[in-house]
């Protein structure tokens, strides 16, 4: 009998094959496009051959700068990750605390609910010039851009998650004698912690976007700065190496957060 497509599941080997397929296809597509361009013009810089990219990557990861001797890629990575970590941590803490207050306390909800909804509609990049003017061109303005960029989303998501906690559990806590503080600390907080990690994972994409945007405009070190610097020489091999490196970092961070969430909150069930 012909089974419906929605009921047909791939076996284990096929699953691995299907997971790898898009990567292989993308690589083949790129290689073919690169071959075509290089055949027409061996000096073409737009689509360097995969071999060239690997050579460049090895050079970038291992060889120091000719003038200072420092391996710039590692310094770029360190500075960028530091900015990202500080920005995302501050945003997560503000989102968690404000979300708890809005979700649990009707008075705070009445005061801040609409305000946060309006605030989240401000395009963060549009106020980037203001940040550079107010906070200068140093580290602060870059971190603040990340914070401003993702905090409204985190606040809204966290407040909704708190509101979504079944009323039964909140009432149950009260019948066991819990004060508002105890309800917040022992019922609401642990229930939304896995949600916080999930929300942070979702907001890492925008966080990288804001980081690279800020670094592109004014910086002297950082992954985004480097990409926008070598753009002037059309050094596609360097840009592509950096893009792949950023992608790998972002994927690793995402995977680490997911693993952390499963370790710390085994009761929360499997997520994506």
């Amino acid at each position, binding site marked *: 009998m012909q089974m419906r497509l929605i009921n047909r599941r791939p076996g284990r080997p096929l699953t691995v094959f299907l997971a790898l397929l898009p990567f292989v296809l993308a690589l083949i597509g790129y290689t073919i496009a690169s071959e075509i361009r290089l055949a027409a013009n061996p000096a073409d810089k737009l689509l360097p051959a995969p071999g060239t990219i690997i050579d460049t990557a090895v050079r970038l990861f291992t060889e120091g700068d000719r003038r200072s001797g420092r391996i710039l890629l590692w310094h770029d990575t360190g500075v960028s990750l530091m900015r990202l970590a500080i920005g995302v941590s501050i945003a997560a803490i503000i989102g968690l605390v404000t979300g708890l207050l809005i979700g649990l306390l009707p008075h705070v909800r009445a005061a801040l609910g609409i305000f946060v909804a309006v605030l989240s509609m401000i395009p963060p990049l549009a106020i980037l010039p203001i940040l550079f003017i107010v906070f200068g061109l140093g580290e602060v303005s870059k971190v603040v851009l990340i914070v401003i960029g993702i905090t409204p989303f985190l606040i809204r998501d966290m407040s909704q998650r708190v509101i979504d906690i079944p009323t039964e559990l909140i*009432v149950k806590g009260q*019948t066991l004698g819990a004060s508002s503080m105890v309800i917040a600390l022992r019922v609401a907080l642990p229930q939304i912690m896995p949600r916080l990690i999930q929300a942070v994972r979702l907001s890492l994409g925008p966080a990288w976007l804001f980081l690279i945007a800020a670094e592109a405009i004014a910086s002297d070190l950082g992954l985004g700065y480097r990409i926008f610097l070598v753009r002037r020489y059309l050094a596609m091999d360097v840009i592509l190496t950096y893009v792949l490196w950023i992608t790998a970092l972002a994927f690793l961070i995402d995977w680490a957060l997911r693993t952390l969430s499963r370790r710390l909150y085994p009761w929360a069930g499997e997520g994506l």
Partner: protein
Amino acid sequence: MAFVDVENIFQSYGPRPIIERVNLAVAEGEFISIVGASGCGKSTFLRLLLAEERPTRGTIRIDGAEPALEPGRERGIVFQRYSVFPHMTVRDNIVAAEAFQTRWGFLGGAGRRAARDRAQETLDRIGLGHMGAAYPAALSGGMQQRLAIGQALTARPRVLLLDEPFGALDPGTRIAMHDFLMELQRETRMTVFMVTHDLEEGFKLGDRVIVFDKPRWDPTDPNAYGATITYDFDARNGGIPFQTIQEDTHVLQPV
């Protein structure tokens, strides 16, 4: 004055009356089953008893105290769903009944050890002693409801409220839970209110079965009138009233 005294309760949501003119006097240690069709205000009445909502008119007093403004430790509750905290282990769910009274919700040092020991005793009593370290998601429906009842009783409430506690259980587990609950009730002499859809369950467990229904019905506007208590059965002795002789007689009794 009765232990639980419900006096002329009205409750409406906006213009829509849900329950009206409800009066009820319950003695300490009585088991009251509440039955009625869906949408007849049973759950609303339970929420009023719980003080999760306050009535539009009328008062509910427990042991003559002022009507409560919000839920507290004198009223315990077991819901049909979300009856225990999913993020705490089975043992911590019982310990929470003691820890939640503290300022920050945590017990420290000796207090925690003592509470854990008491929690283990409770778990042994309700047959969950071996599951202390598991999360509630690993428990069956019947085990979860036993845990919920154990948790509610640990807080030593004056009145225990049960909102269709066995509604989602299979028939076999349900009967086991009946025995469990009757044994606990005999021991603690707790005053219990139980909302149920199962008439047989209501008569089996309850000392009294009260029925919520709408006494007035407007066919052109079904929501015009609220529900009230229409029957109040004596459910002792298998629901057959007048089986216990009230006064002293000289008639020889079978020994």
